[in-house]
């Protein structure tokens, strides 16, 4: 074994908060624009309007998240998985997508769904318990949430294999060439399905971008429990490029995701992006992070807040003023009010619909059980 290989194997995992020298960053935590020779071009054409709309998206999805948390505490949702701290990773990558690209989320990508144009109520119905998902993925090319960790990585890969079979890769026609983006987290990187997805995607040159939000924690287990090497370096072992981006830097996630999607659409997939970020809240509302992590760590990450970072950049560059920021906050208030109203008025479907949609074709058990259920219910009416 050469010294070089040994050195690589023993490269220390960067400590929390430090993404290391390989991490792509275009905005410092203080909101200073820093140049990068490979990625500047992806943000060079962004207008002030577009940058402000990035800011708006960040604020609205943080509000969506806050409402989700509150609605759970009020008993309106059974559970809520928070995206707090991961707004830039989600909006930056989501905004890099073209409408005809296809997204496979986990259950935490409320922000990606939002920028894809999903009705924000959609994210709530699963957690309110009125459906197990309930939207048509074709409407916004945004697949249903997948709860089994990493299972969707194979679906994304197979979908991308299908795109390639359809001839929608590497034609040079920007309206035709398509990519899939697959979200997962640092915990999922240990799952067999994610690793199998890497193998399949590589073997079939699938136009898929694996987007790992490394938020440092898989419920109570730190990322060091999942990996010895930085996660983006795993890609190399599977034979495709991996890149680490500052996940709290919306410009960098936007730029890096655009680059990787382009590569995938051009037939150079798959690729892995590790968005280095932090889960500011609990894993879900059922979790208690005070049992396993120190508050000093959370305090440290507050200085890297993705929204404050863009806000100070916009203000410093004179692209937005206090009146604009206030208008976004006011919009967020209206957005939140609509969200709450929509949530509490969400209809629970009648019991007899439980047997709908289990099968596409007629199934005797579904019909028989539904009939028996209705007869049973009716027997109470008769008894009265």
């Amino acid at each position, binding site marked *: 074994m050469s010294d070089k290989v040994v050195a690589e194997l023993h490269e220390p995992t960067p400590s929390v908060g430090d993404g290391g020298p390989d991490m792509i960053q275009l905005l410092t935590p203080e909101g200073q624009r820093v140049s990068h020779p490979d990625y500047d071009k992806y943000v060079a054409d962004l207008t002030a309007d577009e940058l402000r709309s990035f800011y708006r998206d960040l604020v609205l999805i943080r509000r969506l998240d806050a409402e989700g948390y509150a609605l759970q505490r009020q008993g309106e949702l059974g559970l809520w998985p928070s995206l707090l701290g991961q707004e830039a990773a989600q909006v930056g990558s989501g905004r890099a997508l073209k409408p005809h690209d296809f997204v496979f989320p986990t259950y935490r990508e409320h922000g990606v769904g939002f920028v894809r144009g999903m009705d924000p109520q959609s994210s709530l119905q699963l957690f309110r318990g009125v459906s197990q998902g309930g939207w048509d993925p074709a409407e916004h090319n945004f*697949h249903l949430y997948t709860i089994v960790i990493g*299972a969707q990585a*194979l*679906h994304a890969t*197979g979908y*991308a294999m*299908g795109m390639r079979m359809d001839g929608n890769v590497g034609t040079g026609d920007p309206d035709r060439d398509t990519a899939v983006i697959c979200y997962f987290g640092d915990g999922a990187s240990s799952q067999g399905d994610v690793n*199998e997805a890497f193998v399949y995607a590589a073997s079939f040159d699938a136009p898929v971008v694996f987007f790992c939000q490394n938020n440092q924690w898989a419920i109570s287990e730190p990322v060091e429990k999942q990996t010895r090497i930085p996660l983006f370096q795993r890609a190399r072992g599977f034979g495709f490029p991996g890149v680490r981006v500052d996940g709290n830097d919306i410009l960098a996630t936007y730029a890096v995701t655009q680059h990787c999607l382009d590569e995938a659409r051009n037939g150079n997939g798959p690729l892995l992006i590790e968005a280095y970020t932090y889960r500011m809240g609990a894993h879900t509302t059922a979790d208690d992070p005070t049992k396993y992590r120190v508050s000093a760590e959370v305090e440290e990450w507050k200085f890297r807040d993705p929204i404050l970072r863009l806000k100070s950049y916009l203000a410093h560059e004179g692209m937005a003023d206090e009146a604009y920021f206030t208008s976004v906050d006011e919009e967020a208030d209206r957005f939140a009010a609509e969200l709450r109203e929509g949530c509490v008025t969400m209809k629970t479907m009648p019991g007899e619909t439980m047997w709908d949609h289990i099968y*596409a074709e007629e199934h005797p058990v579904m019909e028989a059980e539904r009939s028996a259920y209705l007869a049973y219910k009716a027997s109470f009416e008769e008894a009265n």
Partner: protein
Amino acid sequence: MALEKVTLGKSITNGLRKAMEADPKVVLIGEDIGKLGGVFRITEGLQKDFGEERVIDSPLAESGIVGTAVGMALRGYRPVCEIQFDGFVYPAFDQIVSQVAKMRARSLGALKIPMVIRIPFGGGIGSPEHHSESPEAYFAHTAGLRVVACSNPEDAHWMIRQAVACDDPVIFFEPKRRYHDRAEYDTAAASAPRGLFEANVIRQGTDVTLVGYGPVVKTMIESAAAAEAEGTSIEVIDLRSLSPLPIDTIVSSVRKTGRLVVVHEASSFLGMASEISAQVTEQCFYELEAPVIRVGGANIPYPPSRMEEEFLPDLDRILDGVDRALAY
């Protein structure tokens, strides 16, 4: 009319070929299914004729086979997965049970997963561990899936075509020790003799009903012939569909015979026979002359192959079951 004598294995090959000719969206994926034609040669020649994009040699990872097939199905394809042996399906269990089976319900009907998962199953071929199992009850227990098992060449040909055409996911069990059995049938027939989810009354009888599926059907027919020589008239039903369960065919028969023996290679504890027994008891309580008898594999892991004849239901054990039913 083209009467031909074809093996069960080749009948599946021909059925897959017809399905692929009929629908360009049908793709096959599995380990060694390309140049080799699969370890049982079921896909032999198909990659040569349909290309590497439609007959996909997969990496050696079963969850990957099924999981990527889900993605292809979402993209509009009709994937047919080959799992090499029954005991190798478990790495794909999560994908089958939590993803394949539930995707449509999760989407409230917006999505469909028209895929087939072919699994050679059952013992009797002298193989080492994991090559002789009968895992059908795990899948029949899972709502959202359909589960079928063929027992003879003509059914194999038609059932695979019907399974591929079905808009729901179908787990397709193939009786591996019968792959080389031959039968004559009209290979140019225009339509299937019966629906995919219907049972087939293979032999009429009046004293005892014998129900089974897959590899044991041939043994049941032999048992019925032997019993006839001793004056017992046995009605033989090839179940064919395990989910949905064509219970009406069984119930009609039991109302006539009053006795039921259910046979499978799978361990009898919570096997298909347990469910059939419960449903028949519910529906035929007054017609039954004897408890429903289960003749299944022992409730142990599949034994070493030198002992498998002691494990598998054979002619004598089936007739012993018949005798026990008649003893009441």
